[in-house]
């Protein structure tokens, strides 16, 4: 298995500032994106992404390529941090979590509608059980291959497919009341 990040991780671990910057540039958006999908909270997503990199900096000097790619390892760390936060949240459920907060700045109606649709999809995603949410996020939002996503989740491809199918069914059901508007318009937008 060839890890495309092996050299850059080695250099970052040895204190090469340019390598560290390249690693951040490449992976920070993915880590923030993953955590934002899982937690539906921008500030918490940034905390998770920062913690992932703090652990990456500790790991880099002694990283030995082999068992897993560095990117897969980072995804595992991010997922575990998200799971921890999701479990803690369950103890005190905020009924408004996931709802879009009114933006004081006026939006054009199309932009507002697009924001509402995205918020509904995000809310449906966040309501899934954590493993289904993670599977959908990795494959459909992070564009990972089935093999890479299964490795990040430490499950088989068959188990990943089961999580994906159940997750997609649940989201479709959650969006059923607005399906025509939400899905129909999104479909039109994607073709346009």
């Amino acid at each position, binding site marked *: 298995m060839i890890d495309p990040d092996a050299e850059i991780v080695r250099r*970052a*671990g*040895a*204190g*090469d*500032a340019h390598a*560290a*910057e390249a690693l*951040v540039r490449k992976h*920070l*958006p993915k880590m*923030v*994106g993953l955590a*934002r*999908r899982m937690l539906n909270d*921008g500030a918490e997503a*940034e905390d998770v*992404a*920062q913690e992932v*990199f*703090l652990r990456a*900096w500790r790991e*880099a*000097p002694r990283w030995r390529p082999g068992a897993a790619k560095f990117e897969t390892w980072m995804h595992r760390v991010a997922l575990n941090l998200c799971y921890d936060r999701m479990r803690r949240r369950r103890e005190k459920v905020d009924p408004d979590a996931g709802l879009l907060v009114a933006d004081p700045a006026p939006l054009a109606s199309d932009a507002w509608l*697009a924001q509402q*649709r*995205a918020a509904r*999809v*995000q809310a449906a995603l966040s309501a899934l059980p954590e493993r289904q949410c993670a599977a959908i996020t990795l*494959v*459909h*939002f992070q564009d990972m291959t*089935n093999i890479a996503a299964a490795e990040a989740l430490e499950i088989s*491809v068959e188990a*990943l*497919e*089961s999580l*994906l*199918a159940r997750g*997609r*069914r649940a*989201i*479709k059901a959650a*969006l059923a009341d607005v*399906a025509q508007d*939400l*899905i*129909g*318009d*999104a*479909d039109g*937008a*994607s*073709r346009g």
Partner: protein
Amino acid sequence: MDRTRFEHLLEAYGADFARWPVDERGAGEALARAHAAEVDAMIAEARALDAAFAAAKATPPPNAALTARILMAAPPARRPQSVAPAAVWALAACALLGVVLGYGAGALTQPSDDGSYFAAAFEAPPEAPPVGDQG
């Protein structure tokens, strides 16, 4: 590929065959073409959900302050070390051992009252006979 497997993959990965397992994409596309009348409605439903995901996909880029905080914590450059830390400790241990052994040896040695060494060191040498007296 049978119809059951096709439906399972469609439910899992959606209508974009590029997301399907590499070794099953061709068979999936072939089945979709061959049985269009039966599977088109299912594909359209899956495609609609894919489109809803795509429309919700955009996320703001990470902010600059977060990037800066992360880079501040990156591993520092290693300073070149002329002497390994283990060697420094070994040298210190040798020096300490030398002091201890020197002190111990001094304590074990009996003090001498014999002043002969002192006298020998400072006593004037015997006078040599004048050169002219010889012969």
